[in-house]
C-alpha cells in the first residue's frame, strides 16, 4: 500500500508541477481569448489564418474547432461563443432565434469557395450539368452510363446535416431531400478518401480539399467540370478566371458570424482586420480558396468602419 500511495503522490505532484509551469508562462494579467467553432470547410483555412495571426500577436489565446457550420451557428445562438465559421448563410429561423436571445448578428464574408464535384480517378465521365448532379443526388440517376460514363452504379457521398456544405448543396443543387442512400461522411477529407477508392463514387467538397501539397490539383481523384446546363460549356472549379467571372455554377461565399458588434481594439476586430490584410488574403489563396468580390469586400469594410 505504501508503494501505491507513493505512486499517486508522485502523480499528483507531477501534475501540479506541470500545471504551475504552464501557468507561470502566461502573463500576470488574464489573456484575451477567442473561441471559434463551425464550418469544417473553413476549418483548415481559419486555423491557418489564426496560426499566422498568432505569430504577429502572441499573448492571446485562440481556439478553433470544426464540426460543421450548424455547430458554429448553434454555439453562437446558445451563447457559448461569439465567433462562428459558417459555409452557408444563417437562415431566417436562426436569425430570429438569435434575435430572441438578444444577439445582434454581424456577417463577415471570408472567402469564395467553388464547391467541387469529385469522382474516382478512373471515372470516364467528362462533365456534368447542375441538373444532372441534382438528379444524381436525389437518387433519380443511379448509373454512370446515364451521364456518359461506364456501366457502374453511382455511390453517393455527402456530409452530415451539421454541415453548411450539406445544406448549401441541398438548397442550391439538389433542391429536394438527398437520396436516402447517400452515405453521410464526417468531413470533407472523409469524402475525398472515400471517392479515392470507390470506382463508382461521387462527392462534393470545398475547393480547398481538391488541391494537393503544392496547390496543384490532386491526382488521386478526378475533378468534374460543371456546366450550368447540358448545352453550356463545363467549367472546372480550379479555373481562377471562370470563378472570378462567376461562370462556375456552384460558387458560394463562406462566412463568419459574430454575435455582437465587435468592440474597438478587441481581439475580434484585430483578427478580422488581419483576415482582410494582404497576408490574410495570401493565406486564403494558398489554402485553396478565392478572394471575395469587391462588393463583398466593401460590405466587410462597412462593418469594420462602423466600429470606429
Amino acid at each position, binding site marked *: 500500500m505504501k508503494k501505491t500511495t507513493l505512486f499517486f503522490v508522485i502523480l499528483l505532484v507531477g501534475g501540479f508541477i506541470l500545471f504551475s509551469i504552464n501557468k507561470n508562462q502566461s502573463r500576470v494579467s488574464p489573456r484575451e481569448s477567442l473561441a471559434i467553432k463551425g464550418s469544417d470547410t473553413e476549418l483548415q483555412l481559419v486555423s491557418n489564418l489564426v496560426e499566422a495571426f498568432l505569430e504577429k500577436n502572441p499573448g492571446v489565446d485562440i481556439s478553433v474547432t470544426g464540426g460543421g457550420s450548424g455547430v458554429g451557428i448553434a454555439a453562437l445562438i446558445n451563447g457559448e461563443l461569439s465567433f462562428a465559421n459558417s459555409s452557408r448563410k444563417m437562415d431566417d429561423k436562426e436569425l430570429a432565434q438569435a434575435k430572441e436571445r438578444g444577439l445582434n448578428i454581424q456577417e463577415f464574408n471570408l472567402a469564395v469557395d467553388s464547391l467541387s464535384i469529385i469522382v474516382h480517378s478512373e471515372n470516364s465521365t467528362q462533365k456534368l450539368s447542375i441538373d444532372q448532379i441534382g438528379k444524381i443526388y436525389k437518387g433519380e440517376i443511379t448509373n454512370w452510363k446515364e451521364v456518359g460514363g461506364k456501366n457502374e452504379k453511382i455511390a453517393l457521398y455527402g456530409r452530415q*446535416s451539421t454541415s453548411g456544405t450539406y445544406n448549401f448543396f441541398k438548397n442550391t443543387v439538389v433542391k429536394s431531400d438527398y437520396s436516402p442512400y447517400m452515405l*453521410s461522411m464526417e468531413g470533407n477529407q472523409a469524402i475525398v478518401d472515400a471517392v479515392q477508392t470507390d470506382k463508382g463514387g461521387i462527392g462534393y467538397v470545398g475547393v480547398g480539399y481538391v488541391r494537393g501539397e503544392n496547390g496543384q490539383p490532386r491526382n488521386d481523384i478526378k475533378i468534374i467540370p460543371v456546366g450550368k446546363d447540358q448545352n453550356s460549356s463545363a467549367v472546372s472549379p480550379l479555373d481562377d478566371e471562370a470563378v472570378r467571372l462567376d461562370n462556375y455554377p456552384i460558387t458560394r461565399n463562406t462566412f463568419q458570424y459574430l454575435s455582437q458588434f465587435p468592440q474597438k481594439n478587441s481581439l475580434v476586430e484585430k483578427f478580422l482586420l488581419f483576415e482582410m490584410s494582404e497576408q490574410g488574403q495570401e493565406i486564403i489563396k494558398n489554402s485553396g480558396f478565392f478572394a471575395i468580390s469587391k462588393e463583398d469586400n466593401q460590405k466587410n469594410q462597412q462593418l469594420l468602419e462602423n466600429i470606429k
Partner: protein
Amino acid sequence: MVFKKDIYFSENLPRLMFGAMAALTVFSLVSIFIFLLISGIGAFEEIGVSEFFLGIDWNPTSFYTPAWGIFSLMVGTAIISVLALSIALPFGLSIAVYLSEIASPKMREIFKPLIEMIASIPSVVLGFLGLLFLAPFIAKFFNISNGLNALTASILVAVAALPTIASICEDALSSVSVRFKEASLALGATKWTTIKKVVIPAAGPGLIAAIMLGLGRIIGETMIVLMVAGNSRAFPTSLLDPVRPMTASIAIEIKEVVVGSLHWQSLFAVGLTLFIITFVINLLADVLVYKKYSYGN
C-alpha cells in the same frame, strides 16, 4: 474516564463523510435519468410516442417537413447488435472454455490478462483501423464499391465486446462447483462431454448474463459505428448496407442543435431510449446472476 464525545466524533465523522459521498454519488446518478427525462420529454409530447418509435424516416433537417421516426435507427442498432453478438459470442465462449477448462494454470495466467487488454483499446482506434484497413478489404472481398456498412462495423464492435463476453463467461464457467466436474468424470464421461453436458449448462445463467452484458456494450458503441457504418438514411436491407444506429445519430447531430429546440429534445429522447434499453438489459443480467448464485454452489 473515556470521553464519550471523542468516540462519538471519531466514529460518526467518518460515517457522515462516507454517507455524504454516497448521497452525492447516488444523487448524481439519479439525476442522469432525471435530466435525460426533462430534456427529452418534450419530444414525446410534440412528436407523439407512436410516431417517434414507429416512424420509419429520421430526417430532422428535411428539405420539406422534418421526420422524427427512430425506427430505422433502432433497426440499425439491432442489425449491428445481432451481427456483432453472433461473432463475439462463439469466440468469447470458446476462449472462456479454453481458459477455464483446458488451459494450464500458467497459460491461463498469461492469456486472461491479454484478453482483458483488448478492452483497453480505445474504440476510436478500432474505428480508425477499420477505415484504413478493414473497410477497403471488405470492399475488395465482396466486390462492392465501399466497405462502410453494417458488416464492417459489426466485426469491429465484436472485437470491442469480446473481452467482456469472454471474461464473464470464464467467471461463470470456473465458478461451477468442482464437484460437478469430478462427479461427471468419475462416472466415466470424457472431458469434452463433461464440459458440454455438465459445466456449460450449470453455468447457464452466468453465460446468459455474459451475453446480455456484452449486448449492452455492443448497443452502446458509438465511435466505431460513427466512423465505418456508413450513416445513410435508407432502411438497411442487407448486411452490406450502410446503417445509422441510435448512438451515432446522437453523436453526429447533437452539436448542431440549438438548446431547447425540438431537434435537441428528440436527440435526448433517443438518449433516454438508449438509457432505458441498456439499463433493462443489465438489470436482467444481474437478476440472472443472483438467481444462479442461489442455485449452484
